[in-house]
């Protein structure tokens, strides 16, 4: 059934994509089937998974649902799905909010454009991938789904593909999360290999302690930070807001960005005390929470305000889940539920405003008419939950977070982190208030157009999903008992040793309540004095503007990679054949020589017969001559001389038949050369720079010397091989078995007949090629092109890189 749920998402998503634009906004109705089914299924599983423990006292006796399928088990790649308590929390977020978003999207896309249905299809695929992330018990399977969410997110952000900003934002998102994913993959492999298992449930029982695991921990955390937009990898999230609001509400606040938090939550009980885990998670989370909050306070675009608020809240969740203390994690579970509900609702409200008013800029909002009252109330309640005001679920979560941190935060630096949480919560209060004031029109600037006053109020279906989520926020805030069993089961799922406490709205007068009062008090102060605060912030941000922002950092990194690539490629990829040859021949000359020199023993006898000396001299002189002379014909004759000298060697070695063959071939080749050279200029046009000549000469001579040394080493090593040359046996078998007295002939046509067949083929093919080229050349000449001359001049001249975009289409049209 677990697999069936995922496959259903795949099938529905593909079906919607396959239908093109035919469905229009009804595509979201189809898409809603998948989360509706999942929610229904999750409800049927809930009692079993949560178990019978009531009221959150004592261990939960829930039984997880699991499924396993081997993919490439030799590599440890397998699909292990598991629905436990925490999985249930995540599924309810992914599919519950998914369902709401689908309904909401029907209102949002009331005038569907081409490509709208594609959003629904991709969103369904995304939802399936996201469910995969939270249901995978296997780290690698989790990674697979993790990357699938990145791909679908890329396609969703860039769906409005004519908009360059959308394309850029999509690219930034996939590059940052992709980079994190790769680092994480390496980290997961390290963890998996040193622990001997990739199963989270098994890792929980036997936490790895290997030394390299510290490196794995860092790698995995980098992945989690990029996905959850933690500092300094958060720059992609505000950019992703270019996507339509339902997508932002779903992917970039409620679900995908929680994947990093989710992974940290899962691994913290296993790895929190390993390596630099706590230092990293807590410092990154703290910085993110504060910076996100500060940035949110400065936004005029309501959606961006929420985006930075999301970053801040994700930092908060990191601070809680990252501790690995189940008591704190329990508070985080409440908070993750609360955040999902209020943030999705807030995004939906922003989407409604954007849709009906045509702007999200709070300077252009001047308050709404009375028909908007329900929308405004929903917005205010959700924002209040975000600010942590009682009696809402946000308050319950934050209160428990403070309480558990005070009571159980007994690790190094917990006091500082608590301070950060308090400060971050004050900022959260401040930007929540900014959201509400903006919605009410307090930031409206007189000279900006007043668009909101007579805006058409949203339909019931459009507002409905946000209202439902807000009602849940209020209801669960008033009666947290309702979620208590779920939270308890989630906590024990994260840490089997946990004994979760009860979640309460009113926990009595304690230190946490005091801090809450402090948060609200300072928050109110920040709101009241918002003008001086804004000035202070501006001055502060001007003062630190020399610190490169993450956004700038990304752009600089991207630009330096592309520019560096261009420069590097311009150097190595010169497009010049002589340079390529120079490099290749240098490698040929140097690379094998280095080991050869270590094998160098002593000079073997170089001269057998005195006649060798003049012959060798002739070969050397003629080859040098061939490369020095400027007339083509002389060079051809010099090459002929080399060939004749070789024939001389054959004679001296007692192979007159070979010598004869060599002489014939050499003569023929020289004659052909002479015939062809008639058509070419008599001299080489050497247009290369003067420095090139000595370099070429050096490399050529080096290659020759190198081959000479290699030959000496090879010949010198012959004695160490005990077996005889195969020629010995060939000679022995030639006459009796192959019935041939000429051993050369027998080798050519019998022993190694296959080689001969191949070489004949090569000969024929070369002939065909030559004819084809000649014909093509003639065609061009007839067309009056000078391409043939170009080819003739080509040989040793430097030339520009080959133009890469020749009009090939012409050829295809025919």
């Amino acid at each position: 059934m677990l697999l069936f749920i995922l496959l259903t998402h795949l099938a529905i998503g593909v079906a919607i994509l396959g239908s093109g634009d035919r469905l229009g906004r009804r595509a979201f109705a189809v898409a809603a089937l998948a989360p509706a089914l999942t929610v229904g299924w999750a409800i049927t599983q809930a009692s079993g998974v949560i178990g019978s423990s009531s009221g959150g006292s004592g261990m939960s006796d829930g039984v997880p649902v699991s499924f396993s399928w081997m993919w490439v088990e030799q590599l440890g790649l397998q699909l292990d799905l598991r629905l436990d308590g925490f999985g249930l929390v995540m599924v309810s977020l992914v599919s519950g909010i998914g369902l709401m978003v689908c309904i909401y999207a029907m209102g949002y896309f009331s005038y569907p454009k081409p490509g709208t249905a594609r959003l629904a299809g991709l969103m369904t695929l995304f939802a399936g991938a996201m469910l995969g992330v939270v249901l995978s018990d296997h780290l690698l399977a989790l990674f697979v789904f993790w990357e699938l969410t990145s791909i679908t997110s890329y396609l969703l952000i860039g769906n409005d593909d004519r908009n360059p900003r959308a394309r850029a934002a999509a690219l930034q998102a996939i590059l940052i999360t992709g980079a994190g994913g790769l680092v994480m993959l390496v980290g997961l492999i390290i963890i998996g290999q040193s622990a001997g298992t990739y199963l989270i449930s098994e890792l929980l029982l036997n936490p790895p302690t290997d030394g390299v695991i510290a490196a794995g921990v860092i790698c995995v955390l980098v992945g989690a930070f990029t996905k959850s937009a933690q500092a300094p990898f958060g720059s992609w999230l505000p950019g992703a807001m270019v996507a339509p609001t339902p997508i932002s509400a779903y992917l970039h606040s409620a679900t995908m960005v929680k994947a990093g938090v989710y992974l940290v939550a899962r691994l913290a009980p296993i790895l929190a005390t390993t390596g630099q885990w706590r230092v990293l998670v807590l410092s990154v989370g703290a910085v993110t929470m504060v910076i996100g909050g500060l940035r949110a306070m400065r936004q005029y675009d309501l959606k961006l305000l929420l985006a930075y608020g999301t970053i801040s809240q994700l930092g908060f969740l990191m601070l809680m889940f990252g501790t690995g203390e189940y008591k704190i994690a329990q508070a985080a579970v409440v908070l993750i539920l609360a955040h999902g509900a209020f943030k999705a609702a807030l995004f939906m409200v922003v989407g409604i405003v954007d849709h009906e008013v045509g702007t999200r800029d709070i300077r252009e909002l001047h308050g709404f008419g009375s028909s908007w009252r329900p929308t405004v109330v929903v917005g205010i309640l959700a924002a209040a939950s975000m600010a942590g005001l009682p009696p809402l679920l946000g308050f319950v979560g934050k209160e428990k977070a403070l309480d558990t941190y005070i009571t159980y935060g007994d690790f190094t630096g917990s006091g500082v982190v608590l301070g950060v949480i308090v400060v971050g919560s004050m900022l959260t209060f401040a930007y929540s208030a900014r959201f509400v004031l903006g919605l009410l029109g307090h930031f409206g600037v007189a000279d900006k157009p007043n668009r909101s006053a007579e805006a058409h109020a949203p339909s019931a279906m459009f507002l409905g999903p946000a209202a439902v989520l807000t009602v849940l926020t209020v209801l669960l805030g008033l009666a947290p008992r309702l979620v208590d069993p779920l939270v308890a089961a989630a906590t024990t799922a994260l840490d089997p040793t946990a004994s979760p406490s009860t979640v309460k709205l009113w926990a009595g007068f304690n230190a946490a309540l005091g801090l809450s009062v402090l948060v609200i008090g300072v928050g109110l102060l920040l709101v009241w004095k918002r003008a001086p605060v804004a000035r202070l912030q501006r001055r502060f941000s001007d003062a630190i503007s020399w610190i490169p922002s993450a956004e700038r950092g990304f752009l600089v990194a991207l630009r330096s990679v592309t520019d560096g690539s261009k420069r590097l490629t311009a150097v190595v990829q010169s497009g010049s054949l002589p340079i390529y040859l120079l490099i290749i021949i240098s490698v040929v000359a140097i690379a094998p020589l280095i080991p050869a020199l270590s094998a160098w023993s002593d000079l073997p006898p170089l001269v057998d017969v005195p006649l060798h000396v003049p012959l060798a001299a002739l070969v050397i002189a003629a080859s040098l001559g061939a490369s020095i002379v400027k007339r083509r014909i002389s060079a051809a004759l010099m090459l002929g001389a080399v060939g004749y000298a070789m024939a001389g060697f054959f004679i001296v070695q007692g192979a007159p038949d070979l010598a004869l063959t060599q002489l014939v071939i050499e003569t023929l080749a020289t004659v052909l050369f002479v015939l062809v050279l008639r058509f070419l200029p008599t001299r080489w046009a050497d247009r290369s720079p003067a420095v090139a000549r000595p370099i070429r000469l050096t490399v050529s001579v080096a290659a020759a010397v190198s081959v000479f040394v290699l030959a000496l080493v090879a010949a010198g090593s012959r004695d160490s091989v005990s077996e005889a040359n195969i020629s010995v046996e060939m000679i022995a078998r030639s006459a009796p078995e192959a019935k041939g007295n000429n051993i050369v002939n027998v080798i050519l046509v019998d022993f190694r007949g296959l080689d001969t067949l191949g070489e004949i083929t090569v000969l024929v093919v070369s002939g065909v090629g030559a004819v084809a080229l000649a014909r093509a050349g003639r065609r061009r000449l007839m067309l009056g092109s000078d391409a043939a001359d170009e080819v003739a001049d080509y040989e040793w001249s430097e030339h520009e890189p080959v133009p890469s975009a020749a009009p090939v289409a012409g050829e295809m049209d025919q």
Partner: protein
Amino acid sequence: MTALIPLPIAIPLLAAAISVIVGRSRQAQRVIGLVALASTTAISIALLIGADRDGILVAQSGGWPAPIGISLVVDRLSGIMLVTSALMLLAVLIFAIGQGGVERQHVAFHPMYLVLASGVAASLTTGDLFNLFVAFEMMLAASYVLITMGGRADQVRSGMTYVVISLVASTFFIVVLALVYTATGTVNFADLAGRIPQLPQGTQVMFAVALLVVFGIKAGLFPLFFWLPDSYPTAPGPVTAIFAGLLTKVGVYAIIRTQTLLFPAEAQLGTLLLVVASLTMAVGVFGAIAQDDMKRILSFHIVSQIGYMIFALGLFTVAGLAAAVFYTFNNIILKTSLLLVTGLVERRGGSSRLSEVGGLVRGAPLLGLMFALPALSLAGLPPFGGFVAKFAVFDAGVQSSEWVVVGVAAFVSLLTLYSMTKIWAGAFWGDPDDRPRQRPDTSDTLGGPALMMASTAAVVVIGVAVMIFARPLYSLSERAAEDLLEPIRYVSAVMGGRP
């Protein structure tokens, strides 16, 4: 079963000869080509199954026992490569027929293509160093003709680069051959495997390096690859696809074969291979990022991904070699499909330059899908075959604690993703209306002519099948890797009772 071994070489060669004879009728040439390559594919599959079930298959040409004659050997690695290359050759031939172009205009296309097929099969099955040279020559000679067949000035010019560099490589190959024969007195692989370990260690390493350089030019290793991205993209469309998909990987095959079979552990070039691999991966992908033309981007990626294969090989572990094998055949499929899609993009958008096409996903969503699947796979994104391949490489690297190279590979993988998104955003997204100079052909509702679309789709589907059947395919790669690390199996299969 052993009787089948010469057929992947013989059938295309014979078909090439017949194809020349019936040159007047393109229709007859097509039938011959298709029949020949289809039967080669079937035989290759049979050979792979045979080699996997019964162990290494050996045929001695002319009935002469090794090392007198030439041994033809199909082990699991050869079998895998044979099947992959036969499938690709067949698909690309269908694509070429669908496209028309050079296939229709040139009487020699079919014969040359079939000689190429024969040469590839010979390179993959031969058990003899000299015969490998001949096989390479067959393959190269045919490729020289194919790359210049369009006859355009730029094709001739870049064909020139290709021909000259290949000739230099061949010259050096023959020199190395002579040296090897001088030192050992044999050229049969199995025989060499017995004799090379007797040489002084320096000489062994010398040969290992020399052979690496020879095949490295063909495979496109750093710093020997510069010719590749300059020459491949200008060839006629289907020719580029088969060159890019297949030919460099034949070089990789030769590197894997010679480095594992001929040299004992103490002469293996582990560290050198890892360094070369890192540089190849990185310089290749940087090159890709600097390009604007799809064909050139993909050509640079060929180089970059060769680096992954060499990295995996350089580990000299079962995990590493299994990864190398898996990565290689998967990459052949991906590269072929991507370049076929590029051919379709070029036809539909009028160009393969990203600055000149755009918005294709709207008019031709199927084309977008056929690009996206192999592109995501090439970038190593799960759950595609390329992910399994990349994961296997990473996994093997981590096992051997080669942190630096794993790091380079991860970084390169990110840049690969970047460059795939660049193609996607450039060719499939965006507004075609604001792009200059294009002659789009949007007449086909599918995205291209049916035959071209079908053959491309077939290759894409094969790529997806790698994902679905990753487990048996990886097991097969693992068995192939075990064979490679136990050269004695190969030697005893070829040499029989002889020492």
